[in-house]
């Protein structure tokens, strides 16, 4: 492997290792905000929200949000 490519790979690894992990309190805050947002549309409880995250090989944060509900809420659309 060329020197430049070795450097690039090494850099990506270092940056990935240095990425700040999302703390439990922060994840709980995100979960709470998601609940407040989606609660307008879906009949859900905070425990119904499943939140997972990981950092991919390129150093990007990937967030998986899983929600289960059996009812949507009635929304009034105001037509002009």
């Amino acid at each position, binding site marked *: 492997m060329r020197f*430049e490519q070795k450097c690039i790979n090494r850099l*990506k690894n270092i*940056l990935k290792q*240095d990425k*700040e992990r999302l703390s439990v309190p922060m994840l709980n805050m995100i979960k709470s905000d998601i609940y407040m947002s989606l609660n307008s549309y879906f009949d859900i409880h905070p425990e119904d929200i499943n939140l997972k995250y990981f950092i991919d090989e390129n150093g990007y944060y990937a967030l998986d949000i899983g929600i289960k509900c059996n009812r949507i809420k009635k929304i009034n659309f105001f037509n002009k």
Partner: protein
Amino acid sequence: MARKIVITSGKGGVGKTTICANLGVMLAKLNKRVVLVDVDIGLNNLDVVTGIENKIVFDIVDVIENKCRIKQALIQDLNYPNLYIMPSAHSYNCSLVTAENVKKVINQLNDYFDFVLIDCPAGIDEPFKRAVCGADEALVVVTPHLSSLRDADKVLMILNSYNITDISLIVNRVRGDMILDKEMIDANKIAEILNVKLCGIIPEDDNISVLLSLGRTVNKGCEAYSAFTILANNMFEDKKKLYDCTTKYKGFLGYFKRSLRKKV
């Protein structure tokens, strides 16, 4: 209304002060009113780089402590009348030197200048925060070395939490011969990995070391002069033009230079 740009890096010794001074000169040559503000209190060097170390009467700390008016702390460059420097202090023992007070000083310069270039200290602690809080834009300076890029990534993460509207990258000390020999990471690749807009490429230039010792900025005899000219123009252009460090190492003569470098 001035554009307030902080020049930062995280890692020390990558060329923030040199770039701050030379960019200031190039902008002044474009008839812009420019002030260079040294916020590195204690380890300041902007005065040395610009050759004004013997002309300092008042500095930014004196302004904050209300010992002088802001205009009294500004030193006009002899060669470029549009360029002013606000030096820093060697030491301070004052609880008044806070981020908020530094920001007030920088805001006072709004009406007098087109560009306020803030020379940020190394690190990401309180001195860094003092420099960044007064800025609207940021230029992050890196060299193509892993330690510099690692620190810059951390700085970029921190800058995102400030009120900075525009963050760009400058890659300094680039060796065109090493880029062609695949011994150095290309600047465009660096910008791609750090996920930041590339604004300037400055080549490694031995002349800069000589000029720094004399307290002078780059002149037309330096390779870096063209790079700094392009960088200054990029401050106004949406589509950035970048200096190509590899030009002089391409072709037969370029190949010969690269081969000679390895053998000598």
